[in-house]
């Protein structure tokens, strides 16, 4: 029998891969088996292009309780408490149906966290869109923001931080990455590792419909809108809330040996993962699965991606207790199978054997590809462009340039967005969105707090994937440090184009190398992550976007600081003095270019600067700190001033290191620098601390109550006008 090309396309396997399946099995696969191989060997589940690269990441450390490979990573923050966290993409579903795509993305990542036995305490999201001038992008933007709020608000988990970036490269393929953070008792972490022959496999939650069949494969091909034929999943946050509470309650009993949520590839991946991690077999009967629709066959049941479902492996003697808890929460549950000793995944449809395959074939035997990457000549040329050959900004134009930057969609206030997210629920939010560089969430019952932030400047990664990858890690960590927290670990979501194109593979490989080197240097191991490749439309890849989510620890929550300076404060720049407009927001706004070399990154200096700021905050010497990212120094200063304040600035000490150029001085971007605000009485002590830490420290201005920004040369701009520009960017 020969398999048709159409049948292979259906499951997104190559002929070579199909032959591997036949060789492994020693026979032709049955139809359901083939569908399951297609899903498990997709990039989304099998990481076949990225797995060799992911080995570069540091994944261990003294605080790591659970590294990659589980539903989420866990780090120890002392007192037996673990922080479970992970970020995941839902890009392709969001391109097709923005509201539901984003909503179910939130639902999926939240399930990953409570599957570990952790109570979710914070949500973040990292979003990338095309230009807001396009009505389609506006529709996608509104839908995604609405879906995130609609789902997260209903669950009662605060959405506390994130980042949004706009560029035309995302027009046909927006990025929606959702991150969830939970708290778990380190001794009670649950894993997706089935064990105990004879234990029962229980499916709980929503009934199974034809939602999102082949979602995992669909996430691994280009042009999502064209390729998607399945049924869009509609999220039910109310049901998820019940599932969350019920699962956490069930995990308090002694009866559960493993738990795995149903995400991409639905029952297929959860059954396979549970069996393979536990080195056991699982036998289930699809007829025991309650359906939402009539006439579904075994193939559809196994590949359905209906949301809000959980697979629980339960000891037989505990079944009654466990089901009583689910009943109490009005959740339907079915016993659909058992753990077996033969290591096989066996799927029955009543009496008929639909699948009988060793679990390891789906996981360990998944092919991996190491490819040869080549840098795109077009991008290499763009990077080689000498940005200092552009005419400098004249003094008269500084005000206009500043207004334009404040109103730029990439810099302007996120207030209209964050106001639609509930960020005060759970009464843990110490630094809400926009109050600091990262959100600070206290850990109830302790004196501690965590700081969390996502970040990635995709322009830097586009222009130089290695340096850009380092920046993504360093900037997320720097933001966390600005609240006084010590970054302890990270999660990442690798959003790239097709790895089958040498230019795409090059970006992926180099960015991962840069991220790995920075993570190692900053001692922030990678404990979880997700890979989303094939983010392309019309044959053009999105900007390479390795989103990084960092978690930091604050030992004494009362020391945390935000970014708002008070009147009378001295503003000091700690760290790098020299900036560049290469890859900057200014260059894009003013000259319409994404070009030049992005800022360089000296990891040793980065570590020293972050440590210095953490120490200065912990000893209460500074009351505000702010990273200077997109837009440069002036933008950062304004973000630190509330509308009633003003500031007299003097950047003269930085002029020579910026080649005397105003564009670099005011709007150039650089890593490893943080503006801190301190009372004048603290300046001497700060200088001493900086000197001991080998960190350059320069006084760049003072905060006053004038309501006016006064620059070196007496140019004055009312702060409220700048705030108006800043507040208006996302409206329209």
């Amino acid at each position: 029998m020969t398999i048709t090309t159409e049948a292979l396309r259906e499951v997104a396997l190559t002929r070579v891969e199909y032959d591997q399946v036949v060789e492994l099995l020693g026979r032709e696969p049955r139809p359901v088996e083939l569908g399951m191989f297609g899903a498990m060997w997709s990039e989304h589940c099998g990481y076949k292009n990225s797995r060799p690269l992911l080995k570069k990441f540091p994944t261990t450390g003294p605080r790591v309780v659970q590294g990659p490979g589980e539903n989420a990573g866990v780090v120890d923050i002392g007192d037996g408490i673990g922080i479970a966290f992970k970020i995941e993409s839902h890009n392709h579903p969001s391109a097709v149906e923005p509201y539901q795509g984003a909503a179910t993305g939130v639902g999926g990542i939240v399930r990953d966290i409570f599957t570990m036995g952790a109570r979710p305490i914070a949500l973040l999201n990292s979003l990338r869109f095309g230009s807001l001038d396009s009505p389609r992008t506006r529709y996608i933007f509104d839908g995604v923001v609405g879906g995130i709020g609609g789902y997260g608000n209903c669950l009662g988990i605060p959405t506390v931080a994130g980042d949004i970036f706009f560029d035309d490269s995302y027009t046909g393929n927006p990025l929606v990455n959702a991150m969830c953070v939970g708290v778990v008792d380190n001794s009670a972490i649950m894993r997706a590792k089935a064990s105990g022959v004879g234990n029962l496999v229980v499916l709980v939650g929503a009934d199974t419909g034809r939602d999102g069949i082949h979602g995992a494969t669909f996430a691994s091909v280009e042009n999502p809108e064209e390729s998607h034929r399945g049924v869009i999943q509609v999220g039910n946050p109310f049901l998820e809330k019940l599932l969350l509470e019920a699962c956490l309650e069930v995990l308090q009993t002694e009866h559960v040996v493993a738990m795995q949520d149903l995400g991409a590839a639905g029952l297929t991946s959860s059954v396979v993962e549970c069996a393979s991690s536990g080195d056991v077999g699982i036998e289930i009967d699809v007829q025991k699965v309650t359906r939402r629709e009539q006439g579904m066959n075994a193939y559809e049941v196994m590949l359905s991606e209906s949301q809000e479902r959980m697979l629980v492996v339960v000891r037989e003697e505990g079944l009654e207790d466990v089901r009583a808890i689910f009943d109490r929460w009005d959740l339907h549950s079915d016993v659909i199978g058992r753990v077996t000793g033969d290591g096989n995944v066996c799927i029955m449809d009543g009496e008929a054997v639909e699948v009988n395959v060793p679990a390891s074939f789906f996981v360990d035997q998944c092919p991996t590809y190491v490819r040869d990457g080549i840098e795109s000549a077009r991008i290499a040329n763009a990077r080689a462009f000498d940005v200092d050959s552009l005419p400098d900004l004249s003094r008269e134009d500084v005000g206009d340039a500043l207004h334009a930057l404040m109103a730029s969609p990439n810099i302007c206030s996120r207030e209209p967005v964050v106001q639609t997210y509930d960020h005060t629920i759970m009464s843990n939010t110490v630094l809400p969105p926009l109050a600091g560089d990262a959100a600070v969430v206290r850990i109830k019952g302790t004196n501690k707090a965590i700081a969390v932030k996502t970040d990635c400047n995709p322009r830097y990664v586009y222009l130089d994937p290695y340096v850009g990858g380092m920046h993504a890690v360093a900037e997320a960590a720097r933001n966390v440090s600005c609240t006084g927290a010590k970054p302890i670990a990270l999660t990442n979501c690798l959003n790239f184009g097709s790895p089958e194109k040498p230019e795409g593979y090059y970006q992926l490989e180099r960015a991962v190398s840069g991220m790995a080197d920075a993570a190692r240097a900053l001692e922030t191991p990678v404990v979880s992550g997700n890979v989303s490749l094939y983010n392309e439309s019309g044959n053009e890849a999105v900007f390479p976007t390795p989103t990084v989510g960092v978690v930091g620890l604050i030992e004494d929550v009362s020391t945390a600081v935000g970014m708002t300076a008070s009147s009378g404060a001295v503003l000091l720049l700690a760290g790098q003095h020299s900036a560049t407009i290469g890859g900057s927001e200014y260059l894009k706004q003013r000259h319409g270019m994404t070009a030049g070399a992005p800022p360089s990154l000296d990891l040793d200096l980065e570590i020293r600067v972050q440590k210095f700021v953490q120490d200065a905050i912990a000893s209460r010497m500074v009351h505000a700190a702010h990273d200077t990212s997109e837009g440069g120094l002036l933008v950062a200063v304004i973000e630190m001033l509330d509308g009633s304040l003003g500031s007299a600035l003097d950047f003269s000490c930085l002029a020579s290191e910026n080649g005397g150029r105003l564009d670099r001085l005011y709007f150039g971007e650089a890593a490893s620098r943080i503006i801190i605000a301190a009372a004048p009485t603290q300046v001497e002590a700060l200088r001493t601390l900086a000197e001991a830490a080998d960190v350059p420290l320069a006084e760049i201005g003072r905060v006053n109550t004038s309501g006016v920004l006064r620059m070196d040369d007496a140019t004055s701009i009312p702060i409220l006008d700048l705030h108006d520009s800043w507040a208006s960017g996302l409206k329209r």
Partner: protein
Amino acid sequence: MGKQQYLVEVFISLKEVVNDPQGLAIRDGLHNLGFDEVDGVRAGKYLQVSVNAGSPEQAQQRTAEMCDTLLANTVIEEYRITVADRATS
């Protein structure tokens, strides 16, 4: 050509195969109140659109265009249109 006003009714609901959490919750609420005879509930939207058109067919067709472009999210929703009556303006 003379135009008249038609009252067009639009019923929008999730496609049969799409999960309807709202319908499920309402169904369960009815069960809790003892309405055991309820088998299923699908929730949707009902709109009345006053349309000036040359004929009922034209009113129907224009409203269908409105549904495709704005009123319904055809990725997940379907719609049914009735040109119910001439609106009394």
